[in-house]
């Protein structure tokens, strides 16, 4: 058991080359905050990337930041905040979800392609990932993308790295697009709304020109540890931008949706707290002993899918992304609802997996559970075969995080 702790790109290459020569895999660890995400690894060695850290280039007016892949997210956010900017994809830390151990890093949120509530407007990590350099499972240094916001030179390998969970390349340096932080934030809350009506309300709001940047639904009984009485089903809509614009859009939304339930609004700092809590999956973190699923479906199906799951399982759930993201906590017994949840995604028509209906990820579960069930959605055979070929193009001997996403890969 070796712990490689490379201090620069060459040492990173030597570490991967050593593992490759020995044909002994490594587990990639940045801050170690998301080791519980994905299938559990049992590798002989650890590749500790934590020294590949620090902001290397940041020019606010170019909207671009370059940093060591293991730079703590908190350090990035402090630097951006000082310049009035942000990572627009609102990367969640999920510290509460995973019990708080470890420090989330920029490379980590990119490798997991995470995104917070602003996903619906600003995109996910993938949409802000401009370039990188690193070492592939072939033990070779390479780079892709660039350090400017607009670039189509060569394949967009950043997209491939985003969401690859360290199974293709050990990232050493990453470049991301950054954006101005909105001057003002407000939230419109509409209470007393049942799930199907909530999804319709969110669709109407997201289809309006009010530039809603967050749309979530907390059903009756879902607790949120804020000074906010969530006593009955509540839709939350976020608007951001220059102060006069936010006030006008807030008033328009209040007017347009007051017929659907009791409408009220939250001011700036309360709004920030609410949306942070939603991004951090706070409504489900109290249930530490439960398995947590993240389900991505067409937004209009969010309530239907959540209710179908709740009919069969003891479920605590809420909706984000206008209904497109269902968060569900279920008892960790048997397959922790994997079969029921995936059947609910396929829907009554039974389209079958991979036909555009959505996918479920087991975000939190015991190692035994994450070994037993598919953490990520299983793919149809041609897609699975293609994904395997892609893995082997970058990591032919399965040195990097093997089995993190798919057993044996």
């Amino acid at each position, binding site marked *: 058991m070796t712990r490689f702790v490379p201090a620069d790109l060459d040492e990173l290459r*030597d570490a991967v080359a050593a593992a490759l020569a020995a044909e002994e895999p490594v587990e990639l660890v940045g801050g170690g905050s998301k080791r519980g995400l994905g299938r559990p690894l049992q590798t002989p060695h650890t590749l500790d990337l934590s020294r590949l850290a620090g902001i290397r280039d940041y020019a606010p007016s170019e909207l671009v930041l370059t940093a060591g892949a293991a730079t703590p997210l908190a350090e990035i956010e402090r630097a951006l905040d000082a310049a009035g900017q942000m990572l627009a994809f609102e990367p969640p830390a999920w510290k509460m979800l995973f019990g708080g151990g470890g420090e989330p890093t920029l490379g980590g949120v990119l490798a997991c392609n995470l995104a917070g509530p602003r996903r619906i407007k600003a995109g996910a990590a993938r949409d802000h990932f401009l370039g990188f350099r690193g070492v592939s499972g072939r033990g070779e240094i390479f780079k892709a993308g660039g350090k*400017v916001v607009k670039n189509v030179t060569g394949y967009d390998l950043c997209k491939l790295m985003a969401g690859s969970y360290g199974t293709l390349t050990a990232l050493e340096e990453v470049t991301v697009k950054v954006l101005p932080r909105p001057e003002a934030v407000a939230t419109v809350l509409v209470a007393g709304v049942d799930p199907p009506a909530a999804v319709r309300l969110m669709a109407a709001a997201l289809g309006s020109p009010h530039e809603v940047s967050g749309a979530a639904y907390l059903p009756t009984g879902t607790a949120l540890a804020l000074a906010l009485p969530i006593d009955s089903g509540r839709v939350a809509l976020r608007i951001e931008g220059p102060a006069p614009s936010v006030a006008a859009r807030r008033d328009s939304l209040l007017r347009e949706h007051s017929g659907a339930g009791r409408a009220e609004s939250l001011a700036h700092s309360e709004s920030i707290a609410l949306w942070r809590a939603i991004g951090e999956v706070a409504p489900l973190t109290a249930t530490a002993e439960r398995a947590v699923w993240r389900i991505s479906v067409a937004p209009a199906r969010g309530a239907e899918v959540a209710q179908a799951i709740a009919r069969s399982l003891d479920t605590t759930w809420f909706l984000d992304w206008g209904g497109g993201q269902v968060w569900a906590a279920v008892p960790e017994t048997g397959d922790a609802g994997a079969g029921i949840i995936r059947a609910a995604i396929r829907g009554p028509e039974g389209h079958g997996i991979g036909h555009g209906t*959505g996918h479920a990820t087991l975000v939190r579960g015991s190692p035994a559970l994450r070994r037993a069930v598919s953490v990520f959605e299983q793919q149809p055979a*041609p897609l699975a075969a*293609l994904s395997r070929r892609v*893995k082997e193009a970058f990591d032919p001997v399965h040195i990097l995080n093997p089995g993190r996403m798919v057993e044996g890969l």
Partner: protein
Amino acid sequence: MQMPLPDAAVILRRDEIAAALRLIVPGEGVIVSEPERRAYESDGLTAYRQPPLVVVLPSTLAQVASVMRYCRDEGIKIVPRGAGTSLSGGALPLADGVLLGMAKFNRILDIDYDNRCVVAQPGVTNLGISNAVAGAGFYYAPDPSSQIACTIGGNVAENSGGVHCLKYGLTTNNLLGLEIVLIDGEIVRLGGKHFDAGGYDLMGVLTGSEGLLGVVTEVTVRILPKPATARALLIGFAETEDAGNCVAAVIGAGIIPGGMEMMDRPAIHAAEDFVRVGYPLDVEALLIVELDGPAIEVDHLIDKVEAIARANRATSIRISRDEAERVAFWSGRKAAFPAVGRISPDYYCMDGTIPRARLAEVLARTRELSEQYGLRVANVFHAGDGNLHPLILYDANQPGEIERAEAFGADILRLCVAVGGVLTGEHGVGVEKRDLMGVMFNDADLAHQQRLKCAFDPDGLLNPGKVFPQLHRCAELGRLHVHAGRLPHPDLPRF
């Protein structure tokens, strides 16, 4: 520009191949006659021409899959094509390759306002999507200048942008799902109406892959509610540097305009001569800044941008008072290419991206190169995202001018890379910038990209000769160079 040497044996089989394709695509869908094939000999990069071996125009998914499988089995190259508007030669045919035209896939399959998306066949035009949803107050955001003609399938292949992409993203940021056919005829669906793939983001990789990885047969795009209003400022500057500083100050103030375009003196004059909209002619740089969104926000930001422009020594500022005036401001910029076409027999449109802070320096160096090559140049610039479009003026009838124009263009792109930018912001590599890839990427970088190609197309049959300067066999690329016995690396820090 050297294309892969055509295989004479395949060319001799033209009639046999056409007959086999007719069994898959009956009737008019297979084109063999020389004059008809010639209609497909080039795309938007007209400097290169090559009639294809055969043209096939399938109209069903099953036909596409069968064509692909047939070509794979027979070892015949395929060049996919949408509307043929590529400016980098992405759809340039091969003498020994089948041209797979997707024009018959021209239907919108589903308009879903509840999920704010449209499912379309790849041959639907970019503007066709926006038009289909305009009545309900929606649009499709990426708007390449060829949007009236270019297809959504081609937009996916090239990851097309447009003037609004700083705020609304490129094609890749507005896609939800794809159906693709692989070279072996396998049909793969990626994404859908939901966000983010469960496995590797192969949709993200397909986007901008220039037809080298698979053929797109269905596209699901996001649609957005139309902004409530839009207004524009037309700002003149006596110095290019002031214009550059103004752009940086706008972004520094936390404003992301819907569009922010710059033109230099030659481009301003050409455009004004053409459309007569009252562009100031005594300035070195002209900036169009468009703010879109709720009316109250647009009014608020217009005031802010005006103040920023004044602080950056703007010599003239006009603010659109109504929609007609806003459109007029844009008309010169949108007509910049044909306007330049009027003052020169031919022009060559380049497409590099630079860090915006280096703009004045890059434009100054471009002017020096212009004198050195003896060719005029006009610059239009997507100022918000640093995407520069120098238009090199030349006359193809003058011996040697086209070669000089290409050499000049290549020098500009090398300059873009040298200042920290990239070879192409939105037009793609194609054949045009293929041989410059080595300026930006080393052999290991290119080998990693080509291994991805091998995972999709191990025999290199899809659109060969594009993007990569050298073709390597996948077996050769796949070889691992591991020196056993390199362990235990005693110099490595281990804890």
